[in-house]
C-alpha cells in the first residue's frame, strides 16, 4: 500500500499541491514529491490532470463483495415523544431523488411503538414502503437495540444506500451498525449525488472546521451509509401515493438492553459566548442612544442571536464590555453578522471579517462597512430593522409551515 508519482507523466503543474489538505506535496525540479507526512487520503489522485499519482492498495485475499446484490435506498427515522424528527422527511426528499436515479425503491425504516395509526400519513412522502419494527421498548431510543435490529434488517434486505440524520442519536447508532456490517460510513454529509456508472454514492461533507469540503465514496463495498446534516435538504412534498407497509413485531424486553434510561431532563438554555455564537447582531454609533438600543436586542432575539457592539457603544455603556467586537474586543466568526449603524473602522472590521455572511445597515452609503458586507442596505436603521423583523417573522412562519 503506497502512493507514488509517475515522473514520466508528471508535468509539475502543482494541481495536486493545491489539493492536499495536509500540505504534503512539494514541487521539486518540476516534479511533484510526496513527503512522509502523507496520510494517503487520496485527495490528490483525482486532481491530477495527467493521472500521474497512483495510490496502490494491496490486494487483499478476502473475497470480493458482490455489490450488485444490494438494491434500494433506506432512510432511518428517528423520533422522540412519538414525533418523527424532521430530518427523516428531508432525507425522504433526497432519498427519492437518489432512488429515481438508481431506479430502485425507497424505504422508510421506523423503529418504535405507537405509530400504527400514523403509518398511512407517514407513507405519503414519496417512499415506496415503510418498514415498521414495532416493540414496546422502542418508544425510546436504545443504542444497542437499534444497532441489533438495524443490522439484522440490513443483512436480510441488503439496501445499497442508508441515510440517517446526523443527530446525536443517528451519530450514536450509525457507526456501530457500520462497524458490525463492516460497511463504509460517511459522517455529517451536506451533499449527496450518484455516479450512475458505478452506482456509487458521492457524499460531500465539510471537514477541517468547514474550511474544506471532501467528497467521499465507498467504491467496493455495500451498503453505503451516510449520516446527513439536518436542515440541508428540502422536506419531501406530500403526495397521494401510499407506501406499502411492512410491520415486524419484535418482543424486546428491558433486559435485552445493556443500558437503562433513568430519566429525561429538560435543560436550561445554554448561554454561549460571543466567539461561539452562530449569529451576531451588532450595533454602532448609528443606534444613537441607549434608549434606542432595544431595537438591536429585538432583532437579535428573533434570530436567536447574540448581541454585539462596536467600541463606542461599549464606552457609552449601551452594551456590556464583553460584547465588544473588534481589535480591543472579541474576534468573532459567526455564520451571520449583522452590523447596524456601524461605519466599519478597521478596528471593528478585524474583529468580524471572518463571518460567513455579513449584512450592513447604514445611513451613509459611503461607509466602509459596505466594502466587507455581502448584503448592504442603505437606510435608517430605525426603519429598516422593524421591517426586517417583520419579514424574518414571515419567512420563519412560511418555513415552519413547510416543515409541518
Amino acid at each position: 500500500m503506497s502512493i507514488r508519482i509517475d515522473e514520466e507523466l508528471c508535468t509539475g503543474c502543482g494541481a495536486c499541491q493545491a489539493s492536499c489538505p495536509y500540505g504534503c506535496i512539494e514541487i521539486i525540479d518540476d516534479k511533484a514529491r510526496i513527503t512522509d507526512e502523507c496520510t494517503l487520503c487520496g485527495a490528490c489522485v483525482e486532481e491530477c490532470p495527467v493521472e500521474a499519482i497512483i495510490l496502490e492498495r494491496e490486494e487483499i485475499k478476502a473475497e470480493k463483495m458482490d455489490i450488485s446484490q444490494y438494491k434500494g435506498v433506506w432512510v432511518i427515522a428517528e423520533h422522540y415523544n412519538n414525533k418523527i424528527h424532521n430530518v427523516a422527511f428531508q432525507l425522504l426528499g433526497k432519498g427519492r431523488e437518489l432512488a429515481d436515479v438508481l431506479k430502485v425503491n425507497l424505504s422508510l425504516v421506523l423503529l418504535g411503538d405507537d405509530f400504527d395509526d400514523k403509518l398511512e400519513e407517514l407513507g405519503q412522502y414519496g417512499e415506496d414502503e415503510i418498514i415498521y419494527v414495532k416493540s414496546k421498548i422502542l418508544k425510546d431510543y436504545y443504542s444497542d437495540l437499534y444497532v441489533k435490529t438495524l443490522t439484522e434488517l440490513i443483512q436480510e434486505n441488503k439496501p445499497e444506500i442508508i441515510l440517517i440524520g446526523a443527530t446525536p442519536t443517528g451519530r450514536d447508532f450509525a457507526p456501530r451498525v457500520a462497524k458490525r456490517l463492516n460497511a463504509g460510513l460517511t459522517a455529517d454529509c451536506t451533499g449527496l449525488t450518484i455516479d450512475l456508472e458505478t452506482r456509487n454514492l458521492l457524499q460531500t461533507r465539510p471537514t477541517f472546521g468547514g474550511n474544506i469540503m471532501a467528497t467521499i465514496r465507498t467504491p467496493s463495498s455495500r451498503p453505503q451509509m451516510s449520516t446527513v446534516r439536518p436542515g440541508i435538504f428540502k422536506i419531501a412534498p406530500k403526495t397521494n401515493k401510499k407506501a406499502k407497509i411492512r410491520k415486524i413485531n419484535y418482543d424486546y424486553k428491558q433486559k435485552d438492553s445493556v443500558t437503562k434510561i433513568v430519566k429525561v431532563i429538560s435543560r436550561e438554555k445554554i448561554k454561549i459566548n460571543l466567539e461561539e455564537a452562530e449569529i451576531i447582531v451588532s450595533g454602532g454609533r448609528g443606534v444613537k442612544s441607549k434608549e434606542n438600543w432595544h431595537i438591536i436586542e429585538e432583532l437579535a432575539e428573533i434570530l436567536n442571536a447574540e448581541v454585539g457592539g462596536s467600541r463606542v457603544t461599549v464606552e457609552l455603556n449601551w452594551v456590556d464590555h464583553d460584547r465588544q467586537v473588534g481589535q480591543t474586543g472579541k474576534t468573532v466568526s459567526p455564520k451571520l453578522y449583522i452590523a447596524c449603524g456601524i461605519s466599519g473602522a478597521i478596528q471593528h472590521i478585524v474583529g468580524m471579517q471572518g463571518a460567513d455572511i455579513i449584512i450592513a445597515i447604514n445611513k451613509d452609503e459611503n461607509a466602509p462597512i459596505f466594502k466587507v458586507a455581502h448584503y448592504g442596505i442603505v437606510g435608517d436603521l430605525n426603519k429598516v430593522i422593524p421591517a426586517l423583523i417583520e419579514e424574518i417573522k414571515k419567512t420563519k412562519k412560511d418555513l415552519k409551515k413547510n416543515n409541518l
Partner: protein
Amino acid sequence: MDFSLTKKQQMIRKITREFSEEYIAHIAEESDQNSQLDPTVMKEMKRMKYFGTCIPEEYGGAGLHDDTISFCIITEEIGRIDASWSITTGVHCSVVAYPLYIFGTEEQKQEFLIPLAKGDKIGAFCITEANAGSDAGGVETNAYLDGDEWVINGSKIFATNGGIAETLLLVVKTGEKGRRKEFTVFIVDANTPGYSVGVREDKLGVRASNTSELVFQDMRVPKENDLGGIGKGFRIGLQILDYGRILMAAQCVGLGQAAIEASIKYANERVQFGQPIGKFQGIQWKIADMGVAVECSRLLTYQAAWMCDNKLDYGMIGSMAKLKASEAAMQATHDAVQIHGAYGLMKAYAVERYFRDAKMAEIYEGTSEIQRMVIAQKLLRRGY
C-alpha cells in the same frame, strides 16, 4: 553548538503560553488599572507550580532547579502576557525560594522553602532602603543579638511582593569593623511581632505587582534564621541578585515579544493612504529593529541561563542579558506605541501598558547604569 530547545522545554513554552493566554490575558488590563493581582489567577498559578519553578520536587517545587532555560521560558511567556505576574513569580522563585534551596539548612528548607515552593506563602527579598539603592552598602537596617534572638530595627522600601509576602529574606547590617560593614541575610516570617507593612507604592508600570515599604521595630528573629552564615550577607546577596537578573532579563524578552507581535498585527491591518502601514518603510525599519533587539536579548538570556545550569560563571553575561533585554524591551515597546499612533496611547491597547512596564525594567533589579558599571569593571579587570 545547538540552539534548539529540548522537547520538554518546547512543551513548557507551549503550555505556559496557552495558560497565560487563557487565564491572564483577559484580565491584564483590569489588573493594571486596579493595581491588583487577580485571586483566581493566583490560585491557578500556584497549581501550575509557577511559584516553585526552580525548586526540586522533594521540596514542593516543579523540579526545574537544573533547567534555568525552562525557568526563563516560563518567565518570558508569562511576561509576554502580563509583566506584573512574571515579576511576582520571578522574584518569589529566583531571589527567595531558590536562595533558600541553595544556602538554606535542611531545617530551614523544611520550614520555609516548602510552603514557598508550593505557593502557600509568597516571598520577598528586601535589600533596598531609602539610602541604599544602587549602593547596597548603604543598608542601615540593623540587628543585634539578644540571647537566642536577633533584634532587627529599620525599614526597607520598594520591596517587590513586600505587602503580600509571608516569608522574607532581609539583608541586614549585623556589625561594623572600622569602615567595613558586615551584612547578614535573615529569613523572616511576616507574622513576627514588630513587623509591619508601610506604604504600598503606586507605580508607573507593573502596577498589579505589589511594591511596599516594610518596617521593623524590635522585631525578634530566632538565632538560627540566618541564611548562609552571619556576616556572609553581602556575598550571598550578590549571588542571589546575579541569579534573579537572568529572570528579569527573561521577563523583558517576553515584553519585547509582546510588543513585536502587537506591532506586526497592527501594521498588517491598519490601512492609511490606501495600504497597510506595514508597507511603509518607516514602519518596516521599526519592526526589523524590534526583531533584532528582542532576538539579541533572548540569545543573551538563554546563554546566561545555560551557563548557570552548566556551573559556569555567568555573572557578567547575566548583567549583559539584563541590560540588553530591558533596553530592548524599552525600545520595542516605544516603537510599538509609535506604530500604533494615537491608539497606542490608549489604555484599550495593550502596548500602552507594555511601554510603562518596560520602563520599570530599566531601573529595578539594578539600573542600566549599574549593569554597565559591573560589566565594565569585569571587562577592564579581566580583559575580553
